[in-house]
């Protein structure tokens, strides 16, 4: 199916929003609706994908088409995306190159453009780029501890779809809360927590989240031409080899001067298998937490965060 008129295009993970806007459509990151969802999917592995699957199939989330990121990132999305497609919602499957091949990336992007109608308004690349430049300034303020991690996360996580409206989104790029001095700086790696208040809970235990791994990818990748976009998005760390991702992580964690690392893992997500490797390689105290269903941060996760904060306080 080829989209013609202006449509809402659901995305299941990072899909260059530049392309969706440039083709005249509105991206909608279905994941952004999961943490506050009350869905209880009957058949599930990962609650992230199962929840958006149910929301789409039950029409509680309306999209005209769904772009499923199936290669190199979320494996559960491949199955749940197909179930959505079988339920009658047009779906396009988008694959990242594991080896960073920019030709492959550009070919995937061209296929996506065809699905989106084939007409590209390159001025939109620049518009999204300007929003990301502004986002980068806010990210720098977070690194310097001038805005809270919760505030930064709220802004960064929305860079996957820019809320479907670039000018309106840019007007929202204002930090809400004044940052209070935290005892420790931590990096949050892995998929984003499925809990809607995770950053606030971490802050309540004296931890400033100075890095959100995946949302930062949403912000840092981009470009002003198809070739630039292909080169940039081919470096999407979550779709690349673990070694590539670890090299990147080490640089970011050092740049942000973190005292410790929280590795968030999602029940039934293949990224959980990477935990041992990450713990061995990263030269920081690492707390691994595992989440399952969306909602508020449960007590057993709060206990781990509190104990981690106490532990950082005991570190030599």
């Amino acid at each position, binding site marked *: 199916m080829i989209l013609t008129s202006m449509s809402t295009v659901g995305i299941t993970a990072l899909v260059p929003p530049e392309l969706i806007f440039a083709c005249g459509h509105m991206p909608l990151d279905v994941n952004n609706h999961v943490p506050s969802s009350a869905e209880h999917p009957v058949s599930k592995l990962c609650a992230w994908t199962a929840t958006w699957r149910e929301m789409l199939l039950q029409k509680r989330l309306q999209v005209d088409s769904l772009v499923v990121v199936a290669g190199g990132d979320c494996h559960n999305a491949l199955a749940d995306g197909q179930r959505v497609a079988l339920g009658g919602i047009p779906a396009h499957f988008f694959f990242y190159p594991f080896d960073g091949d920019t030709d492959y990336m550009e070919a995937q992007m061209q296929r996506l453009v065809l699905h989106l109608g084939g007409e590209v308004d390159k001025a939109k690349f620049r518009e999204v780029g300007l929003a990301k430049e502004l986002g980068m300034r806010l990210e720098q303020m977070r690194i310097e501890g001038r805005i809270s991690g919760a505030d930064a996360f709220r802004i960064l996580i929305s860079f996957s779809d820019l809320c479907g409206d670039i000018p309106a989104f840019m007007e929202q790029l204002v930090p809400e809360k004044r940052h209070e001095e935290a005892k420790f700086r931590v990096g949050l790696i892995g998929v984003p927590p499925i809990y809607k208040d995770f950053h606030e809970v971490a802050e309540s235990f004296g931890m400033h989240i100075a890095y959100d791994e995946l949302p930062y990818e949403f912000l840092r990748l981009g470009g002003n031409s198809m070739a630039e976009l292909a080169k940039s998005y081919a470096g999407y760390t979550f779709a690349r080899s673990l070694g590539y991702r670890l090299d990147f992580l080490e640089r970011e964690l050092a740049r942000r001067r973190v005292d410790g690392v929280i590795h968030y893992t999602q029940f039934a997500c293949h990224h959980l298998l990477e935990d041992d490797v990450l713990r061995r390689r990263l030269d920081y*105290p690492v707390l691994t937490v595992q989440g399952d269903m969306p909602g508020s941060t449960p007590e*057993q996760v709060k206990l781990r965060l509190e*104990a981690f904060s*106490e532990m950082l306080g005991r570190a030599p």
Partner: protein
Amino acid sequence: MIGLDVGSTTAKAAYPEGKFRIVESRNWRELTDGIAPCDIVSTGYFRKSVPHKLAITEITAAAFGAREYFPDAEVIVDIGGQDTKVIDLRNNTFLLNDKCSAGTGAFLEFTAKYLGIQVSELGDLHMRAKKAAQLNSTCGVFAISEMISRMVEGASVEDVVAGMHYSFARRVAKLIPEADRIVLIGGTVKNRGLTAALEEVAGKRFLIPPAPQTVNALGALRYSEERP
């Protein structure tokens, strides 16, 4: 000042004169008679639900408490009612298993209830076993099904209890890092059948303090003394 550990099953208090008291969690008030909240350092699952001057997690309390008995401890394994915590004191890290009851005291209670015996009898039954029944399941609920199967096949209660302890031990042993001085704490550790199975599966001897279930209460007390 006292250290008060209110856990999922029992509440423990450590008093400055070196005494300890243990009651069921719902009766925790008996431990604080005449003691002002400003003289209580709490820990355990209900640490924030009881009056306290300071509340610390069980992980920190365990680190301070175990040190009292074994100053050169490297790893602490705290087998509690609802979870199992493994604390590596060498690099200040910890792991918790609480998604599943199979490696926790709740699993032992579940088993004892099914067999119609007291949890306190499990250790002696284990020691009388002739051949531990083979239980392969890592899930507590499926393990009960397997126990039924083994008993239908003719295994004795003693053999089934021993098999259950080995199943439990295999699950906990996977969480324990390589170390020489490993301390076992928590009420479950009083079960000598379980500790024997754990030592056999892990292939090493563990250090067990005299009152393993009160270590966290003592740790809370020591924490308050070191960081008044």
